């Protein structure tokens, strides 16, 4: 495409390619270092050089006690992320559907919701913990932790949902209504299935934002740590590459979630276009 008449690419092609490779390195090099060091030899330390290659530090993770309660915090974080994803989807999809029509004050409501994205997370967490203290309730990741994470995922999900709804052609709904569908039938049979790829996107955001969350959770999780809090604690008291093994494992989990989400979106799109191949 970017070829000159003589068939040779201009020098800018190579310059921009190099620039893009540098950009990718910038994005991924930090984590790459962690992944490599997580396979450190049995006698190796927290820094280069590698003394060998082993999976010893991964084994150490599952042996409870030696490097904190990784398995417990991991389960806790997955549970929390799943609940956050479900609530985020339920609230944001409903809100998104509500915003299909303009209504008085709709703009104010929207900007109020979106503006909360810029609140400093650490202070939101602090505020929540102060309120809980004032009311005499103990902080707990299931309650205060969950609530504080939602102050982050809900506006984010709403923003995504708006982009999804914005591209939704309302004549689909009118067609459903025209063909005799009730409001609920139209939503269930037409609107939600058409929006499904976007809804999966909202769930993905809810899940990964929660799974990763530190600033809002650190002061509201109570006595039991979520995974990011546990990792933070480990950086101060664990002096073995098991820390890096945690990094590798959590990356794999995030990656799996993303692959599953994007894969299911791709599957839906393919079913919409290649349905015939299977049925013939």
């Amino acid at each position: 495409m970017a070829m000159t008449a003589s068939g040779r690419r201009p020098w800018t092609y190579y310059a921009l390619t190099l620039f893009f490779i540098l950009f990718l390195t910038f994005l991924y090099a930090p984590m790459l270092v962690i992944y490599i060091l997580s396979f450190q030899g049995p006698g190796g330390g927290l820094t280069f050089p590698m003394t060998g290659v082993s999976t010893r530090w991964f084994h150490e993770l599952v042996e409870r006690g030696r490097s904190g309660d990784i398995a417990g915090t991991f389960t806790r974080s997955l549970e929390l992320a799943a609940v956050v994803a479900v609530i985020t989807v339920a609230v944001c999809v409903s809100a998104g559907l509500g915003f299909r029509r303009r209504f008085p004050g709709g703009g104010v409501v929207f900007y109020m919701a979106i503006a909360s994205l810029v609140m400093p997370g650490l202070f939101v967490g602090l505020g929540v913990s102060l309120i809980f203290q004032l009311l005499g309730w103990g902080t707990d990741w299931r309650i205060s932790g969950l609530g504080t994470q939602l102050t982050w995922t809900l506006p984010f999900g709403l923003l995504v949902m708006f982009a999804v709804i914005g591209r939704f052609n309302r004549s689909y709904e009118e067609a459903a209504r025209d063909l005799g569908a009730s409001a609920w039938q139209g939503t269930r049979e037409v609107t939600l299935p058409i929006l499904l790829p976007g809804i999966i996107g909202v769930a993905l955001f809810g899940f990964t934002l929660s799974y990763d969350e530190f600033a809002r959770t650190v002061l509201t999780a109570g006595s039991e740590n979520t995974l990011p809090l546990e990792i933070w604690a480990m950086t101060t008291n664990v002096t073995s590459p098991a820390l890096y093994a945690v990094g590798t494992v959590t990356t794999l989990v995030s990656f799996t979630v993303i692959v599953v989400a994007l894969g299911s979106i791709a599957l839906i799109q393919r079913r919409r276009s290649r349905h015939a191949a299977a049925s013939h």
Partner: protein
Amino acid sequence: MAAEQNGKIELISVTKQYTPGAPPAVGNLDLRVEHGAYCCLLGPSGCGKTTILRMVAGHEEPTSGDVLIGDRNVTGLPPVERGTAMMFQSYALFPHRSVLDNVAFALKMRGLGKAERNSTARELLEKVRLEAFANRMPSELSGGQQQRVALARALITNPRVLLLDEPLSALDEYLRLRMRGELRRIQRELGITFIHVTHTQLEAIAVADVVVVMEQGRIEQAASPRDIFFHPRNAYVARFIGGQNVMSGTVERVADGRAAAVTSTGARIEVPLVGHRVATGETVFASLRRDRIAVRRPVSGEPRRDLPNSVTGEIHAIENQGSYVKITIDLGDGEEFVANVLDEDYFIDPIDIGEPAMATWSAGDVRLLEDGRSDRGAEVMEPSAVAA
């Protein structure tokens, strides 16, 4: 005929105002479409034609006034209780459902079993010759095929009125011509009322029994295509439909049922009055069929001021349209004057751009328009009487 089968549509003093204070999308409009008629709502975008369609469908409610279908007031009823079906401009085929499921959707909503609704849907797909595509997804079909699926989906409820919102606008020229014939054929076959919204004049003229020309939320003229084309009521309709030149002049005298008027360029035109009264000194507007004008080179001594029903000017443009040649003459008054001359006549002695030309016609092809007349709207012009 049973009441629920009657697809007569009446709009009574219907007004639709989207924004208070702004001009209404549709203003105090009356319209009656007989059962089994093919009616085209024709006008530029924003003229209110789609709003009317949506108010008949029940996707929009009038601010005031009533919508009647088959003598029953349906104002405020949901679409499903009106016996109408709508075909959307983008077809709005559900992308996540197969062609068969799309067509069967209305029956599913009515709670019919799968076997029953699928067999009815297959029958309709046969009617639009798409039975082989039942298991395809909409995105796998061409635009023309998608349109036929949308048609089958709308017809499955046996509506008494089919509402079509710009049904041909997404198709290419070839398919557009074929599908408009197809729509007309299906309408005849079913004998139900069609209301078809379009901004294309020739499309409306080609398919409709009744053409409703609209502008700014008003009906300018509602009549048969022949009358719309040959007997436009006013300058707007004449200009919008095309095929007519609009002229205006000051009446010099009235005699023998004709007004003799002088245009701003000094040309003299004769306008048959067919029962209308105009006074000397009044300004009248008239239309003249473009295909009833002869164009020739002026001979020496021309233009002659005493020769009525002729104009002289310089050829501005020549467009060969195949069976005829469109000649645009610059009269110097700003109004475009066009003559459609048969190709065989034109090519005997082709006059080129920039050369002087004289156009002549017979007074019988001139029609008095309503514009500027004091008795405007006071009587119903009977087009067949004019044609006689």
